């Protein structure tokens, strides 16, 4: 298992991480819409070691996206605790969460979600801008490196509307890498791409993981799931397979 070597993925991170990168304990999430209450997560215990490459699978509506939202602090659990990189994120304020997330987590959304008024390069710089990382030139240099990594250097000045879907997704990955996060999560990051492009995207994620970054992603694709170190299966808001450390 790759997670055996524990290291700090970046210097800016709070401290050396000991223990698992992600630890969900007895997490419940109840959605309330109108008079209806829907228990999306019904007691999730889940841990991901530092440096792991993990796939979340399960039928539609089983709660995969909800888990990702909770472990990135995008949503809050109704009950249970969430510890990421040694910090209890369920106890942070919305603003603390935002800057913590910017520095520690890279998110790749299903629909890319690039900012339409920013160029590819500016999009790739944005998390550094928010985190006030280095000088402007350093940010630009680093973002260029990331764009080069995703083979998009030549399109750095293009607006998202001038990029194809696959190119946009590559920018999204470059953006997720911006602050050297310890954790990258993707919710069907290749869901909107053809299989060849998707496979290339996966190679990219895998190579990032090689550098010690923990990667957690949701996928519906058998092949993609099989490339993970470990597959965690979710059904009806519960973990049914692959936890903990059973790979």
């Amino acid at each position, binding site marked *: 298992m790759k997670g055996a070597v524990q290291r700090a993925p970046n210097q800016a991170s709070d401290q050396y991480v000991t223990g698992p990168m992600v630890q969900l304990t007895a997490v419940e999430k109840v959605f309330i819409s109108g008079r209806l209450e829907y228990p999306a997560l019904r007691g999730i215990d889940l841990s991901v070691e530092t440096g792991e490459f993990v796939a979340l699978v399960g039928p539609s509506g089983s709660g995969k996206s909800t888990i990702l939202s909770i472990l990135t602090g995008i949503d809050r659990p109704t009950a249970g605790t969430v510890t990421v990189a040694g910090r209890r994120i369920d106890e942070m304020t919305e603003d603390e969460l935002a800057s913590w997330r910017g520095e520690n987590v890279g*998110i790749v959304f299903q629909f890319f979600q690039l900012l339409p008024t920013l160029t590819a390069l500016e999009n790739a710089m944005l998390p550094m801008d928010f985190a006030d990382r280095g000088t402007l030139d350093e940010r630009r240099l680093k973002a260029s490196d990331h764009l080069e990594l995703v083979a998009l250097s030549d399109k750095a000045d293009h607006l998202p509307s001038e990029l194809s879907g696959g190119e946009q997704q590559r920018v999204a990955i470059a953006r997720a890498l911006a602050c050297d996060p310890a954790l990258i999560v993707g919710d069907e990051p290749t869901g909107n791409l053809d299989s060849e492009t998707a496979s290339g995207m996966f190679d990219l994620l895998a190579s990032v993981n090689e550098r010690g970054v923990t990667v957690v992603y949701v996928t519906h694709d058998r092949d993609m799931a099989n490339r993970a170190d470990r597959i965690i299966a979710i059904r009806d808001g519960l973990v049914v397979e692959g936890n903990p450390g059973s790979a």
Partner: protein
Amino acid sequence: MISALRRRSLRELTKRGARSWLTMTTIAVAVVGVWLLAIPALIDDAMTSRLDDDRLNHVRLFPNAVVLSDAEIDGLAELPNVTAADAKIVAGGQVNLSGRLIDVGLVGVRDFSAQRVDVVAVESGAAPEPGEVLADGENLRFGRLAADIGDTLSITGPAGTREFAVSGTGGTILFASGVREGDPILYMTADTLRDLTGWPGVTSIELHLDQRDAAVVSETITAAQVYLDDINPGQSYWLAPGTWDPGEWPDKDDFDNFRSLFTILAGVAVLSGLFMVYNTMNTLVRQETHEIGMMKALGGRRRHIAGAFLETAGLMGLIATIAGSVAGVLLANLLVSAIATSLMSAQPHFGVPLEVLGIAAVIGIAGTMLAALPGVLRATRISVRDAMEHHGIEARYGDAWLDRALQRFRFLSRSAQLGLRSAARSKGRSVATGLQIGLAAGTAIAFIALGATMVFLNNQTFDVEAGDIHLFEQGGRGLDDTTAGIVEAVDGVAAAHPIHYATYGFRGENYGVWSLPTDTVFDYDLGAGRWFREGESDVVVVGQALANVEDLAVDDVITVERFDGPIEVTVIGIDNLMVNGGKGIFTPLTAVLAAAGRSGSNAYWIETVSSEEAAVDAAAGGIEQALRSRGHSVSTELRYVERAANQSEASLILTFIVLLGVPVLAIGMIALVSTMTTNVLERTKEIGVLRSIGARRRHLGKMLRTEGMAVAFVGWLLGVPLGYGIARLLIWLISRAFGASFPVIFPLWSLVPVLVLTLAVAALVVRIPLRRVARMRPGDALRYE
């Protein structure tokens, strides 16, 4: 399908809570603006009811004191066409204010509890008992005579001097304007005033009529004169009969000027409101395009879809109209109450002018539906595919040169760049909002220009008269060729400049005439022609307003009614200053004195050595004493006192201009809140993304602030020419009412505070959408549709 659509359109209101409320609030605010139209109608009402309460006379006769019994006065009311009759005694007097005598008008009322025409109402305190006076409420308001209830005033009338206690304040519209023009008014019982004047009977008869057309009125006047002649054969009059034409009253011109100001202002508010409704509905429909596409995909017919949308729009308009009208009625009545009590001393009644309600309903409901129509039609026309891909936001960023230019603003922080580019992204909406803000900023700029022009004119009207002290004669032995010498010998006096005030008739109207020496200190400003030369007699210089109204030009020979009969004079110059509202006439002093058989003028402008108030006071006291000890009856006017009164009047007017400008400005700024909130709602998902990648509250704040301020700046840019245009229009309208052509004073400095204010308000109002954004969970934001 139809009933499902209808249910959908109702549910729409609750489902898209924030959006619908925002739209309805915006329309409601526009409707509130429409209600400013009620202000002219409401002040008309207030004025009408004041005229009704005061029962302003239709005809007034000025008999030399005639003794009439109550029965004889009642007998006047029995004359044909007369519905009510009353009589008063009026006289001029002086009040001794710590040694200085100031002129006052004295009015004697037969019985305060049974007045029939020109009713003197008590505003505070009590009606005067014998030996007491009631001070006109305007006295204090215009700084003419500060007298509190219980104060004692020493009043001198033709028959001597008495002490009077002030019983209260009050007044009637007939005399209110006199106070504004100069002399304070004091009311007392007729018997008290008879005692002070030594005159028997009454000197003013006021009649209320049934028929008001000229022929009938003149018959009625004749009948009344015959009636008086029967009682007192050979009855003489000290002034020709006065009549008020239907719809006329004292100071109506001023009132009309104010009224037209309010109307213009309300017009601007309505315009702004219409615009806002259009803007809002257009945005709302654009956001629904996606849904419209889906309905079409499911087989919805264009007609049905459009119908359902219009129904929703109508419903929103209805709710907004009701809410906006409630607030608007309150606001309009509140403003009118402030205006009426402080400017017109009238008590307005709470009112809901139905015609304004109609306009509000048309704009609020039909306007809303109409505004939605183009968008709905456009939306139902686009293909299902396009509609499905449409997500409300105008995602087309990057094509325009502006977008390219903004890419180069590298020096800005990323958050500021995001804000600026967002403003550029929805260009149509940003410009529309900018236009609305521009309308508001323009109104503010125009109002400052208007205020500056009015202050300029006001000061000019005031400043044309030179000197620190004005000296007038008071009946009895007046002023003569010895006056200047006596005055100039008084300590503290630098120079005494003669001026003779008179009134000439010209084409049926009376005009104030200043007769001045050839080398006058009056600093005339001739727009055409020249000033008179030594030895000239039958020449005049006229004010520009008089020249405009009566179509006079240099070299015209006109006939004027001088005190000694009609004379022909040649117009030799046209003066631009605001003497007597631009309708002044100037004649050579020597010729007028010769015609009047006088050795000296009836007034002097006196310069003192020092302009210190105490020095002026002392000099005025010295002048009065020096002249009185030689048997002259005189009074003085201290220019610094007049200046203060003048300025308090100007600042009162400015206050109201500001008071009325604020709602218009507020409407513009609410437009900004509405646009910003819409922009933010539309981009909720994007903001969720920003939050997910580390944007803190301050980043979002900076982004929204930049966006709001950019739009506000565009608004200000548009507001500058708009403001200049509105200012010109307002001033043109007002000067037309005066028959003059006023200069447009457009102070460039005003652009700066308006810019600062606009930007500051913009920075402030974006806090509203920011709060919403900062509180939102990124998860909820990302799920937002």
